[in-house]
């Protein structure tokens, strides 16, 4: 009987694929965002609003991750933006291989930004690098102000935080102060915008953040 030491990271294959994607995106100076949230937080609605406002000036495409259906990709395509749907079946997150496969169905030449809308889930997607520049975490008010304390993994992973459906705050017991306090104990450097995709609040700040990142990436030396 022999014991053979391996010490191999189970996700190292995913990390290698993600690194290859990142190089591919860098060569094209394409900004890539990985959108994380629970189901129903408003990721697709945010992308719809973004497409409506910026599609004329910003060349964008979307990779949609869901267990089933083309519904999200259809919503994006209805606005004239290219979208590819990945159906994960029972898979609770996207991985770098799935994104690589989706790129075979999506022409990314000449794009400014590629949004990858992950499967709605605050746990598993945090472990899987997709080659993105930034992970954008979306939390919505009706989910409750305890989400940071309960799901710190997603907040540690996040590079930018959007607090959506802020217009619903008066109808719930959500405390923005309590939420911010928890976030500051996990990642004090994490910037946050309060947002309402349906009422328009905070969208200008989101567009500004996005456009700054796009021009930084465009001017980056790859």
């Amino acid at each position, binding site marked *: *009987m*022999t*014991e*053979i*030491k*391996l*010490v*191999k*990271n*189970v*996700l190292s*294959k*995913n990390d290698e694929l993600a690194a290859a994607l990142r190089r591919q995106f860098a060569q094209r100076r394409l900004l890539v965002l990985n959108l994380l949230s629970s189901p129903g937080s408003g990721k697709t609605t945010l992308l719809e609003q973004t497409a409506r406002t910026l599609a004329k000036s910003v060349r964008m495409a979307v990779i949609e991750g869901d267990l089933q259906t083309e519904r999200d990709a259809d919503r994006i395509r209805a606005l004239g933006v290219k979208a590819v749907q990945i159906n994960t079946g*029972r*898979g609770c*997150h996207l*991985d770098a291989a799935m994104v690589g496969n989706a790129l075979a169905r999506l022409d990314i030449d000449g794009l400014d930004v590629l949004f990858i809308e992950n499967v709605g889930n605050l*746990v*598993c997607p*945090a*472990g899987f690098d997709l080659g993105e520049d930034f992970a954008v975490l979306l939390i919505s008010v009706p989910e409750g102000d305890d989400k*940071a*304390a*309960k799901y*710190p*993994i997603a907040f*540690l992973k996040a590079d930018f935080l959007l607090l959506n459906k802020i217009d619903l705050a008066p109808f719930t017991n959500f405390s923005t102060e309590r939420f911010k306090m*928890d976030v*500051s*104990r*996990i*990642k*004090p*450097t994490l910037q946050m915008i309060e947002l309402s995709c349906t009422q328009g609040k905070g969208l200008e700040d989101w567009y500004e953040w996005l456009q700054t990142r796009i021009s930084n990436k465009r001017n980056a030396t790859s």
Partner: protein
Amino acid sequence: MSIALSVIETLREELARHPGRRLTKVKLGIGEFSGVEEQSLRFCLDVAFAEEGWAGVEVQMDRELLQAVCGECGFVFHPEESDFLCPRCESGEIEVRTGQSVTIDSMVLE
């Protein structure tokens, strides 16, 4: 399930280097903060191992504690609950060192 399949893929590659040997045990390191639930992973591994013809292979799971180091003062600590600030200098410039991954630590062959 994708983690279970990834474990199998890695083991398959490693086993190919030892022709004629039989796998009897696998030791995994499960990061406290990996997002992986031991019970569910064990269930998925049972199913996937059986399909691979590895029924009966023992799986040992060791918990790898979360460990962070402060970028300001260098203090190494274990973040408690959802508090990731440095307990010594309150800095938020911390780097998580261990406890975020799942590793295959070793395999035992017969």
